[in-house]
């Protein structure tokens, strides 16, 4: 009985944020995603190089929308993405014959490693998954995927977060670096 009672939930949602917070979250995420996608679509459009992956959308939620969260700090953003990318590429290269296994291992192992290294960043799970279920273009990158788009893209987004999040008087980013 207790098992099912736990599913009811006995807490409540945190309060809604004010309009100023919403506006700055919008401005930050617009700028951050614009930065990586302009590089991707305008600079790299004649090349095989990549600058943007889906998981950056999730990172934007954290580093522009929930900037006080421990999950949104630079250590987590950059560390989580890089670690997960390595795990994802490794999983694909070892188990590409069994995509279901490669996908599951990529996500679960990156979560465990992120926990272990105090770099938990939810979009990292997506970064690891993309390394397995992504296009041939991504598969062909091999471990270069870790460097670009992942590490470089995350760094660009971090740079934008440092600028935009510190413009309003009452906002401050990051809470900590390492």
């Amino acid at each position, binding site marked *: 009985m207790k098992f099912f009672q736990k599913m009811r939930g006995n*807490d409540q949602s945190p309060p809604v944020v004010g309009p100023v917070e919403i506006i700055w979250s919008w401005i930050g995420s617009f700028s951050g995603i614009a930065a990586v996608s302009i590089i991707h679509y305008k600079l790299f459009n004649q090349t095989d190089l990549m600058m943007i992956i889906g998981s950056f959308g999730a990172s934007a939620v954290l580093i522009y929308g929930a900037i006080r969260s421990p999950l949104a700090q630079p250590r987590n953003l950059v560390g989580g993405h890089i670690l997960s990318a390595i795990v994802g590429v490794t999983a694909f290269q070892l188990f590409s014959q069994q995509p279901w296994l490669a996908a599951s291992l990529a996500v679960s192992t990156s979560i465990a490693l992120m926990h272990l290294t105090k770099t938990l960043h939810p979009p990292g799970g997506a970064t690891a998954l993309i390394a397995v279920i992504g296009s041939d273009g991504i598969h062909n990158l091999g471990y270069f995927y870790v460097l670009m788009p992942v590490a470089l893209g995350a760094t660009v987004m971090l740079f934008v977060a440092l600028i935009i999040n510190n413009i309003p008087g009452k906002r401050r980013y990051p809470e900590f670096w390492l």
Partner: protein
Amino acid sequence: MVTTDRRQGTPPDISEKDIIEAMKAVHGYIDITPGDFRQIYQVAYTMAVKRLLTSIKAADLMSTPVLKVKQSLSLAQAADFLAEHHISGAPVIDEKEQIVGVVSEKDFLREMGFNVNPSFMQIATHCLHDKSCMICNLRGRTVADIMTTPPIVGTPELTVSAVSTIFTEQKLNRLPILNSQGTLVGIVTRTDLAHACHALEEES
């Protein structure tokens, strides 16, 4: 209002509404549920109380120098001494300055034939009805005759919570503090303890 329900180690009961209001007052999105915050708060509060109770030592509380009486003193002289210094008791020392006991109002009252903790009115009524006031029982006797011995003593390292436990369990009002050589270095009274708790409140 605030102080009455604050027992040792029990945090003031903040409601989820208080937490929600506080979260609204702090700018930005905080990704924690009010219930989780409350849990963290309660644990942290308990730890803070524990830290404060163990960080303050008897050495920080005690009064020095200690007012003490010689065991050879007559009770009249001893009563004069206590009255003069507005204290209700003092450690008793022998010729070699070693502590041998504690003498207090309680010892006087016991020798006069009263039970533990008589009220002033009980004493008044006794003396008014009975022409021979029982204080005469004490004439010609010395401190050594009535003191509580052996004395209960403490060390300078005792924590404030340990001192308060001794007071409660031993029903004491004062605790002489001896260093490792057995020398009397101070005394902690209930008043000292109350001052320490008050200082803690002020700090927080």
